């Protein structure tokens, strides 16, 4: 027997010692996770109440941190949400696993109620101050500011220094953290990457942010429709384990088994009950009260249910951004050349409803790092509309992108790798039950079914994109051919004449002959280009691909209130931005006039 006394610890104690498990494994991650948790909570709160979110983020360096190689960072996030009553403030910010969303099976960003409490703990551990919360609900006359700390021993939030506060909006919430951390703006774990990614998958969000040494930025909303998070459906019995199944029964008190199965689960009907009986379930048991059923009987019931075929779970509980809103949002990524967006119908993967959306966009003017001409494409991953920024390589989304043959769509791709070029591939997965690989929700587990669903969506997006790329290739091909004729004809004939010492007369005749030969090739190339151009135009007309011009970008400026159901369709004409293409076009025109004169 062990001599030491066995003690039990609170959840807060556990997490305060294992903050690395929930996204606080490095000073850089600490800043990002804190920001992420605050913004996610704001967005969820706004959506719950149908408010179009407007969030302001300010991040500043306030000095040197107490930990080695860190700065003291001040993070402030303010929203126009419903605000929190003072009673709820300590639960939300100071208590672990206190959540309104835990296990509800909804596609909300936050699920367990760990993240923001962990951020408070980090602030408390590194700067000896918890979080400063300023809140005002509609019913409160004045905003109130309090400091919240985590009572680690008892997993409780403690309020301190209550006083009057100030908010920009008539209602909302502001949180301020003073933490040790390090600021990274760009790249995989960058703050700007997170903020622009959040804006991409939340077209209804207006985001203001001020980061150290950067000018303030405002990303305005491009959709005035606040997404309605579908209500949760009851669990599907095939997705449960025996223990969960028994625990689920305890939630319903005294109720017959028949009633419990029909009420407590989705996809169980009277017909299903008859099937259960056929498959060996004692009919009498159906009328027994669930609180009278023992463990062995539960086991029998459970195995009969698993033996019986049931309808797949409902996909009603998942939501999508929608191709229209996603299309508008993609333009906020930067200088987008053209893009395609695909929203797949919700489907079932591993007995869980999921919806996948993909946007593939070509950017202009990227010069450094990912998404440049030579580098791999920039991958943006989203789970329930939250950017995922770490451990990219193990993620189901990256595996799916690598499994697609992008060369078929005109992109370059080293074997078994991400495609390369100045593209952004944004993949969004929405599901009430996303299987993350870790508690910090950075990587999605790569099950075969999920990877296949992601892959299909990516293939669809690639196919749409390829029409425009093919047209460009044909255009380039035609341009090359024209150039070759102009450049090589005289050289070839000159060299041949010098070697053979041929007279000028022969030279002239050979030049004419060569032009005739290559002219035939040119006609064929022009035909191919016309066909590709037609296919690309058709694709654009159907809204399968969108080509952006400067005018279009201006027209899609944020304050515009876009009308529903109408897609922008723009033709590619961009003289300044694409000199090479212009040259191609002028050469194509030249060729056309030559052809005319020849005929």
């Amino acid at each position, binding site marked *: 027997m062990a001599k030491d006394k066995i003690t039990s610890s609170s959840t807060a104690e556990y997490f305060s010692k294992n903050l690395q498990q929930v996204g606080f494994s490095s000073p850089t991650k600490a800043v990002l996770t804190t920001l992420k948790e605050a913004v996610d909570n704001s967005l969820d709160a706004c959506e719950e109440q149908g408010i179009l979110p407007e969030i302001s983020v300010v991040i500043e360096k306030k000095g040197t941190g107490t930990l080695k190689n860190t700065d003291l960072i001040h993070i402030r996030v303010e929203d126009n949400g419903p605000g929190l009553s003072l009673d709820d403030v300590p639960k939300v910010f100071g208590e672990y696993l206190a959540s309104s969303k835990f296990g509800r099976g909804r596609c909300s960003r936050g699920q367990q109620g760990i993240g923001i409490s962990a951020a408070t703990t980090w602030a408390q551990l590194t700067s000896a101050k918890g979080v400063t919360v300023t809140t005002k609900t509609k019913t409160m006359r004045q905003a109130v500011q309090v400091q919240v700390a985590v009572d680690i021993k008892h997993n409780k939030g403690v309020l301190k220094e209550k006083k009057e506060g100030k908010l920009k909006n008539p209602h909302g919430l502001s949180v301020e953290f003073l933490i040790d951390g390090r600021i990274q703006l760009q790249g995989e774990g960058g703050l700007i990457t997170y903020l622009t990614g959040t804006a991409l998958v939340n077209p209804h969000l207006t985001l203001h942010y001020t980061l150290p040494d950067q000018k303030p930025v405002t990303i305005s909303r491009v959709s005035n429709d606040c997404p309605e998070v579908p209500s949760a459906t009851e669990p599907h019995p095939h997705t449960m384990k025996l223990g969960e199944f028994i625990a689920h029964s305890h939630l319903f008190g005294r109720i017959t088994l028949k009633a419990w199965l029909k009420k407590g689960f989705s996809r169980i009907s009277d017909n299903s009950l008859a099937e259960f009986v056929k498959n060996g379930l004692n009919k009498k048991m159906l009328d027994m009260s669930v609180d009278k059923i023992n463990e062995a009987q539960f086991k029998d019931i459970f195995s009969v249910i698993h033996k019986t075929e049931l309808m797949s779970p409902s996909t009603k509980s998942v939501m999508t951004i929608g191709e229209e809103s996603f299309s508008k949002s993609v333009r906020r990524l930067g200088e987008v050349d053209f893009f395609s967006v695909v929203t797949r119908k919700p489907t079932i993967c591993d007995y869980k409803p999921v919806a996948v959306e993909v946007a593939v966009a070509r950017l202009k003017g990227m010069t450094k790092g990912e998404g440049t001409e030579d580098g791999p494409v920039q991958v943006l991953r989203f789970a329930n509309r939250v950017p995922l920024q770490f451990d990219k390589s193990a993620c189901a989304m990256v595996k799916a992108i690598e499994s697609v043959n992008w060369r078929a769509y005109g992109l370059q791709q080293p074997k078994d790798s991400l495609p390369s070029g100045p593209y952004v591939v944004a993949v969004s997965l929405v599901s009430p039950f996303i299987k993350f690989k870790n508690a910090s929700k950075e990587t999605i587990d790569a099950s075969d079914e999920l990877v296949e669903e992601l892959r299909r969506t990516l293939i669809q997006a690639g196919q749409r994109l390829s029409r425009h790329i093919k047209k460009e290739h044909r255009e380039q091909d035609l341009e*090359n*051919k024209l150039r*070759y*004729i102009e*450049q*090589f*004809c*005289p*050289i*070839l*004939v000159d*060299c*041949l*004449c*010098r*070697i*053979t010492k*041929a007279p000028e007369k*022969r030279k002239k*005749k*050979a*030049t*004419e*002959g*060569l032009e*005739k*030969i*290559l002219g035939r*090739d*040119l006609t064929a*190339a022009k035909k191919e280009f016309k066909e590709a151009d037609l296919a690309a135009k058709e694709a654009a007309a159907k809204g399968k691909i969108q080509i952006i011009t400067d005018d279009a970008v201006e027209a899609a400026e944020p304050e515009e209130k876009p009308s529903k159901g109408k897609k922008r369709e723009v033709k590619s004409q961009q003289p300044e931005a694409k000199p090479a293409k212009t040259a191609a076009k002028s050469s194509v025109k030249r060729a056309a006039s030559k052809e005319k004169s020849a005929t």
Partner: protein
Amino acid sequence: MRSETIPKISKELCNRMLSDLESARRPILEAVKCSLDNSNYSPKVGYLTPGDKKVRTELNVSSVQKMSRAIFLLEVLLRNIDTGAVNTKRELYYIAKGEVKHDPHLKPLDFQDQSESDAVIDFICEMLECYREDLNCYANDRGGQTYSNQLVVTETLPDGTKAVVDLSSLGTSPFQPKNRPQSLQLKAKKKIDFCLVVESEGTANTFVANGFCKRNNSILIGAQGVPSNAVRGWAKLIQDQLRVPIYFFGDLDAYTIQNIYRTLKAGSAASLIRNSDFSAPDVHFLGVLPEDIKKYDLSDYPVKETDQSEARALKKAADALKNDPFFQDKRNKNLAKMLEWLLKNKRRCEQQAFFMVDPRDPTMPEKIIVEKIKKGNFI
């Protein structure tokens, strides 16, 4: 083909192209396809010869650059032949760049990389069915360091004068053959019993330092890995002019047999048009043989399949057994068997392992080699 006929053939070719152009017909350039699938092997001939397959390049918008570059470089090479100037491929790359620099109209022909101009030179050789040495384009001489106390070499220089080199007068310095050894005449001062080609140049040097050439009436050559044109042409010359038996002594591994030894004996698929002058079909594989491992209790070790180059050598050996007409010929079944043995056992044994037989006797490898030759213990 000799250098004298190349200008004539080139002019005929260009004339034909010009006539085609005048009649608005697409000129076609044809070259021998130099690949294994166009290689034939007959033990009577002794080396890999080209089949009927040709690489046809028809003039169109896509091939006009390649054709223009070929004719442009051909003009440079013909000028070299005319003036007697010689160059390496790298020099020709810079000469081409210089031409482009001085004539801006030639800018579209500019080579971005030497590999581009090399490919065009190879294409010209395949088209004219000549060696690049015939076009006065010489490779860097590598390997073939030769030691002998009996051999006398007479070289005819470009100006017609002759240089006589008595190898016994060179001391421990080797004689190194040129990439075009056809201009050399060989004579033996005294009967030469055999010629030994050693894979490792270092080991060949050790043998000489230990008195191999003093004790044996022989020619000793260091191959320095895969035999260069110089080594191949030199072995062919020794075989044809001196008619002495030639033995190859190298490692027992897939790369040595499939690549080094096969190239020395029968040429390569990449050089189908010049194998007749650059292979020595009478050469024998002296060792290391699989049975030598047991007989002399040599240390061998497993092939590291994780090592990319070794894994590639095994794969190439497996391909050779399936597709290489040399290994498929029944006269070479013992060599094929040896490759099969190597593929099955995945072991290798180095030539230097003979030094472990009697570590205190530096001449032990020599004794084993001479014994193997006497007893006919070779393939």
